């Protein structure tokens, strides 16, 4: 694994968590009930915190005078390497929960590996803190999947549709590119094939409890890790980045 690839791997961890944290934070003030509003904001705060840690580490490693904010606010959509799933608009509560459900199962397993690997102690440190947070995110989303799936007919149909709509974005989570491959060989990143198995077990288990169908695997969307995104990301970044880009000399 080259030094560049190593940094890129850390940046990707930051991109995933920032993009999802940004999306999720839009629920604040708009949740289905006050208690859930608070829960979603807590999750968003965890994710933004994780992003800050990964960006700060990536910035230190590349040593080019950038910091967490330079990485968050002064890169364009082509530079972001998050998974496509995370940048999709929030949709309704069911869409958001399904996305949390798919991603949390993945991120949880990823953090399990990252917290145990011995190649990069700083990554392991961030991951072991994040792992606890992800266990909660997973639990929370799984509880909701079961309640929506096995709730009313309306909720069942809605969340089943969300699962269908988002399914084609799950393939990318397990598709290794050169960075993933090099990271795996170096002992930094998990084997995505093995990770897919544990992910499948988690997802299938919960879908069954929720009386929901797992969709057939078909064509999968890809491109996030190569910087080829959906149309949604550049809008999201335009909004997120507007102040630092408008006043590049200002500090806040």
């Amino acid at each position, binding site marked *: 694994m080259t030094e560049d690839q190593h940094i890129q791997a850390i940046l990707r961890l930051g991109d995933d968590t920032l993009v999802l944290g940004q999306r999720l934070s839009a629920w604040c003030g708009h949740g289905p*009930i*006050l*208690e*859930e509003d*608070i*829960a979603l904001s*807590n999750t968003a705060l965890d994710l933004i915190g994780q992003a800050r840690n990964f960006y700060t580490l990536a910035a230190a490693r590349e040593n080019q005078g950038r910091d967490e904010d330079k990485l968050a606010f002064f890169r364009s959509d082509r530079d972001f390497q998050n998974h496509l799933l995370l940048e999709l608009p929030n949709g309704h509560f069911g869409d958001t929960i399904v996305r949390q459900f798919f991603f949390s199962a993945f991120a949880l397993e990823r953090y399990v590996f990252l917290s145990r690997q011995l190649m990069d102690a700083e990554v392991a440190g961030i991951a072991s803190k994040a792992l606890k947070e992800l266990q909660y995110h997973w*639990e*929370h989303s799984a*509880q909701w999947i079961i*309640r929506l799936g096995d709730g009313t007919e309306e909720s069942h149909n809605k969340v089943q549709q969300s699962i269908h709509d988002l399914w084609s974005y799950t393939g990318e989570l397990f598709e290794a590119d050169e960075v993933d491959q090099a990271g795996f060989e170096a002992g930094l990143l998990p084997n995505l094939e093995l990770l897919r198995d544990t992910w499948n077990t988690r997802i299938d288990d919960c879908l069954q409890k929720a009386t929901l169908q797992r969709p057939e695997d078909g064509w999968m969307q890809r491109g996030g890790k190569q910087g080829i995104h959906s149309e949604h990301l550049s809008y999201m970044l335009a909004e997120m980045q507007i102040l630092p880009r408008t006043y590049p000399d200002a500090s806040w």
Partner: protein
Amino acid sequence: MSSTQNEWPLWEVFIRSRQGLGHKHAGSLHAPDAQMAIQNARDVYTRRQEGVSIWVVPAESITASSPDDKEVMFDPANDKVYRHPTFYKLPDEVNNM
């Protein structure tokens, strides 16, 4: 649509702030079931590390003494001053008892 009967039930939340202390009433919240009540309590009442353990109890399961009985229930303890250690004046030599 006035859906008062569809409202999630009310739960009372009790938090142990650290090991060694008892659970103390922190407040209440709405949740559809016990599991979600625990999760919500964690998110609502322990955002600032206020707790290490949570109890949730359906508000309707709590039986309370009636305020009208306050005097009957609690006044009779008034004149039992001998239950309190300060009632007993001991010689200074044993003042650590």
